[in-house]
């Protein structure tokens, strides 16, 4: 597993060197390899597909423009995802400042019974409100932690904080969510 990781790092570094010379094929390989993670991170932070797609495109352009600052001895993926996450966090903050209404993309699944679907939707809505009320960093960590491809070390690299801090913030965020949900339940008739 470790060898595979080293191989990927070396492979990515070789690709980055070729992309620095403007090789389209090498860039295409990098895009194919990391586009899905980039989209997942963007979507999890922004919560909207079109915004996430736009952001991934912008992030690749930005990565290409700043490729000379990339340290070839390090992993490419966290470096790219950091660009994605930073831009997504900025975009979300900008969107919240404008206070535009967010259209929830997660409609109740058609396969469930209407009652279960409504209940599930209400729970999701409560969770969304509770999540939005978390401090910025906890919120971002909580959103990224659910993505299978990222562990606390990856998230730490993306957000430039120690992995231990990520785990602690995640724990605190879960507790805060739980507390918020309990309050909601307490208000229910």
């Amino acid at each position: 597993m470790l060898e595979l990781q080293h191989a990927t790092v070396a492979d990515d570094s070789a690709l980055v060197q070729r992309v620095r010379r403007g090789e389209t094929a090498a860039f295409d390989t990098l895009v194919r390899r990391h586009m899905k993670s980039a989209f997942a991170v963007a979507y999890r932070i922004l919560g909207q597909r079109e915004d996430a797609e736009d952001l991934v495109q912008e992030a690749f352009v930005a990565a290409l423009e700043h490729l000379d600052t990339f340290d070839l001895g390090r992993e490419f993926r966290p470096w790219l995802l950091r660009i994605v996450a930073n831009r997504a966090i900025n975009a979300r903050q900008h969107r919240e400042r404008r206070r535009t209404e967010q259209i929830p993309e997660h409609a109740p699944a058609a396969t469930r019974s209407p009652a279960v679907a409504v209940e599930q939707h209400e729970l999701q809505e409560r969770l969304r409100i509770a999540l939005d009320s978390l401090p910025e960093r906890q919120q971002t960590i909580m959103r990224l932690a659910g993505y299978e491809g990222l562990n606390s070390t990856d998230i730490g690299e993306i957000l430039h904080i120690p992995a231990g801090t990520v785990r602690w913030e995640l724990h605190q965020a879960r507790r805060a969510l739980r507390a918020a949900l309990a309050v909601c339940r307490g208000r229910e008739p």
Partner: protein
Amino acid sequence: MTDHELDRDPVLNTEEQQALDSLLAEPELSAGEWDSLRDRIERACELPLARRRQAIRPRRAAVAKWLRPALPLAAAALLLIVLSTQLDLGTGDRQPGGELGVAERTLLADVSDAEFAQLVSGEADAAALLLMAVSEE
């Protein structure tokens, strides 16, 4: 606290965790949608990639850089060479036995002041000059 310990952290119950996962999970994109996104990214990156390709050709770029201002200079030099060659043709036959140039032939010719003025002004035609010569004789 390790990842494993956190995974066992029973803060959210199963239903809540599922709802949270469902809330945050990115949508499933079809192969065509991924291709479309990749195309978008690559189109947007065409120009920066082209700039990079351009930047790695410093020798050609340097030649082009120096060639651009050098072209007018080269043209001016060529013009000077052509002009000086023509001047040599006009004035260089002063050696004995050499053929004289048009201007020199005109100056040395046995013509009156009136004919000379006509010739220099360029107004005279052959018939006028002939009449002038006959009348003088």
